[in-house]
């Protein structure tokens, strides 16, 4: 939910120097510089990890315990290799066979599982975007619909809707047993879709309501109807508001898919792999890190996909406040 809930302050007077600096840096250098800083940040995190392993107390830092297991509040983790593997051990493990013998390398299994889950998340995202958009358009069209539904939608963003996941899954199993086919992956996609559709509905409503009163007057003066105004004015004006909503929806769909898989124990999904390998962590400590990195990559790919959509729609984003 980092789409800017906070509107920026009024535009500042830009001094000559600031404008000059902005003109000077080209887009290419800006991107390269940002990537370099990002890598520096990752390197810093790795450095902190390894330094802590080297210098930190072997049993971690506990506050208020009496020495027995599970007592007190653990502030810093234990440093030995079973609890905190070295970064290079994590990387090496990814290229070792998944479960010994001639099973494919772990990174391949993770990629396959991530692909499966990402596919389900994408399906859920699509459904959510379609339903959310339709709802957004309906809310913009009829004030009564907006008044009736918007409060519920806003509330749904606040409460842990995902708490429903095990229940949805249980319902799905029952429906399936009673004869109406309901494969487990459908539960996953559905859970992902209802997490995705709420931000899209709100984003679409906000975006469709965004055009200047002046532009609306213009449309009215040229006697354009509701549908034309929607397609030629409101939808294009909505793009800058929709893109953050689509990004949030993508991230939510990914989370929803992973959580749903864990609830269901879906075979072939990354959620199940995550739980499985974590269960074996005492004998194979570096293994659970691979699917963890896999979920991180999934999130980045999902966001990247939305960014590509944003690039394709760049014509509608001219004059947008940088988010």
């Amino acid at each position, binding site marked *: 939910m980092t789409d800017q809930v*906070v509107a920026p*302050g009024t535009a500042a007077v830009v001094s000559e120097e600031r404008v000059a600096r902005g003109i000077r840096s080209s887009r290419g250098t800006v991107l390269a510089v940002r990537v370099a*800083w990002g890598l520096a940040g990752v390197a810093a995190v790795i450095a902190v990890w390894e330094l802590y392993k080297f210098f930190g107390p072997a049993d971690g830092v506990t506050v208020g315990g009496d020495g027995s297991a599970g007592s007190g509040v653990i502030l810093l983790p234990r440093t030995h290799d079973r609890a905190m593997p070295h970064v290079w051990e994590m990387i090496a493990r990814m290229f070792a066979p998944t479960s010994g013998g001639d099973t494919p390398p772990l990174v391949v299994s993770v990629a396959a599982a991530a692909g499966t889950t990402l596919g389900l998340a994408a399906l859920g995202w699509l459904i959510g975007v379609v339903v959310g958009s339709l709802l957004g358009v309906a809310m913009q069209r009829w004030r009564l619909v907006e008044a009736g539904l918007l409060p519920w939608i806003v509330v749904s963003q606040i409460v*842990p809707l995902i708490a429903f996941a*095990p*229940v949805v899954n249980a319902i799905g199993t029952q429906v399936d047993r009673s004869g109406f086919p309901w494969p487990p992956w459908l539960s996953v996609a559905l859970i992902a879709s209802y997490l995705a559709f709420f931000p899209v509905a709100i984003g679409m409503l906000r975006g469709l309501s965004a055009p200047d009163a002046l532009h609306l007057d213009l449309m009215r003066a040229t006697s354009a109807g509701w549908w034309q105004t929607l397609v030629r004015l409101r939808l294009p004006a909505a793009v800058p508001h929709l893109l953050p909503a689509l990004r949030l929806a993508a991230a939510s769909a990914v989370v929803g898919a*992973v*959580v749903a898989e*864990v609830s269901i124990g879906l075979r072939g999904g990354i959620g199940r792999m995550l739980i499985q390998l974590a269960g074996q962590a005492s004998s194979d400590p570096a293994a659970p890190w691979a699917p963890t990195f896999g979920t991180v990559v999934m*999130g980045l790919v999902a966001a990247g996909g939305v960014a590509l959509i944003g690039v394709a729609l760049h014509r509608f984003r001219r004059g947008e406040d940088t988010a």
Partner: protein
Amino acid sequence: MNATSLPGWARIAAPVAVGVAGLLAWYAFVASGSAPRMLPDPFAVATELVERFPLVWEAAGITGANALVGLLAGTVIAVLLAALAATWRPVDGMTAPLVAALAVVPIVALTPILNTMFGASSQFGRQAVAGIAAFVPVFVNTLRGLRQTRPVQRDLFRATAATGGQTFLRLTLPTALPYLLSGVRVAASLAVISALVAEYFGGPADGIGTAIATYAKSGRAALAWAFVGGGIAIGLLFFLLTALLERIVARRLGALRP
């Protein structure tokens, strides 16, 4: 069309009507017998909630406490880091891409790893996940707030020969405060959601999430839904408290409303 505004009463009546209609539809669907067993009728859920209230309360206390710890820790670290990033470009450069990445990855997926690192009997994994989830919106909003002072205001303080510390305390901080609190309001909901969902990924066998999963699996529908209700209640509570705080401070600080 919708050119004219709705009367005030309609703005309240409409969502209430939708809620009531939803409840009635739910009840009718279940009463018709065609609903799956996992979908009990609203009264059964309410009954279980009342009968098992101590259980729900205890579980809610655990999940709520985890969310609170995460929210507080995440907020403190986010404010400190945002202050650093607003002051030194290198810090800003390194944290911006990392925070952008954090905002899109499933943070709860870190729970199994954290449980391995800190031990599966500790609540710390869930608190850490809630903390990371809370960190992101507070950091982003606080950083933006720290940059909202206008050049003419900064000129004024310089012209009045104010020291750097005075400018920070008297101008930058009051300007940033409403943004910070907006971030905390968003973070509160995220912390609750994350604390709850993290319970699906392992750790001690307590909390609302574990209860929902357990009872859903064993087919005790109404009880599972009662715990869902408990989770929703915590979410609403966190939201209301932080939204209230935000509103009070924004009013106290005058026209600066995000």
